[in-house]
């Protein structure tokens, strides 16, 4: 999968509320230390814990049901930046990118609304809760990601 310029996107995960990895899309990932299953499980588990951690430690929100729960949306290291989005239906979208990239919250929302919902959820041949492989989704995703770089 050769892109014309150096890609800033590394990889994408989509999980559902039960921890099932619905999709894993890779553009550039030279190092993968774990098997795919372990990698996905680790990713999901870490995010689940991180989400509840950020909510519990929030100094501003009282934590009552009236306030929307606090959720983290990205973290950065010296080699990559991880962007996260979770919907009310439990769909979690994770994007790993180059560390210099800015805020991608809107991009993740776009990937959810215009690519995932349009090509996967509305696809009658897709069984919800199962991993999917959809050419239209991949094409739309690649196309969109190119515009982000």
């Amino acid at each position, binding site marked *: 999968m050769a892109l014309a310029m150096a890609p800033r996107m590394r990889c994408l995960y989509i999980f559902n509320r039960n921890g099932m990895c619905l999709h894993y899309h890779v553009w550039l990932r030279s190092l993968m230390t774990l098997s795919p299953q372990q990698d996905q499980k680790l990713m999901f588990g870490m995010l689940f814990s991180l989400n509840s951690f950020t909510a519990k430690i929030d100094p501003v929100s009282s934590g009552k049901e009236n306030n929307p729960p606090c959720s983290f949306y990205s973290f950065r290291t010296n080699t990559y930046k991880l962007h996260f989005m979770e919907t009310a*239906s439990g769909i979690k979208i994770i994007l790993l990118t180059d560390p210099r990239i800015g805020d991608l919250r809107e991009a993740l929302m776009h990937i959810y609304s215009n690519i995932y919902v349009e090509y996967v959820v509305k696809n009658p041949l897709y069984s919800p809760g199962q991993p999917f492989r959809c050419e239209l989704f991949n094409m739309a995703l690649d196309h969109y990601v190119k515009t982000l770089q």
Partner: protein
Amino acid sequence: MAPAKPGDAAFANVDHVNAELFTLTYGAMVRQLLTDFEDVEEVNKQLDTMGYNIGIRLIDDFLSKANVTRCSEFRETADVIAKIGFKMFLGVTATVSNWNADFTECSLVLDDNPLVDFVELPETCQGLYYCNVLCGVIRGALEMVSMRTEVKWARDMLRGDDAYELRLKLIEHVAEEYPYKDDD
């Protein structure tokens, strides 16, 4: 309470389909189910199951287009369904009423029901809940946002009542739990 405007905005944002095409397609589907299953109770169940399968997908479509934040309590959920959900997908609004004492049960009364245009139930189908698919849709959609509910028709104009009223009952909130066992 969610204002009516977001419902209109959401309605304007989605693709529209011809109302008659929708009504006639649904009618053809129910007729086919009646031919296939012959038993009215079975058809009711099938409609509910089909609605459920629609609902579990519809929720993502709804969340991506409707721009609503997470509801903090069930009262808000019912309002969002009535004002935004119904408007967005059926083009009609509903009113929420008849709350029970601890706000876990309410009625949704539809102003209008596009599914039943041109429909009259014959004698052989008196037990049929023609719009039972709506019950399944709401149940399926709410299940994907961690709420287990029970949705039934309280009043149905095709069966002689004066309005279309759904009774929506919240059974429980299902908390998100860590799906993996700790020893894995």
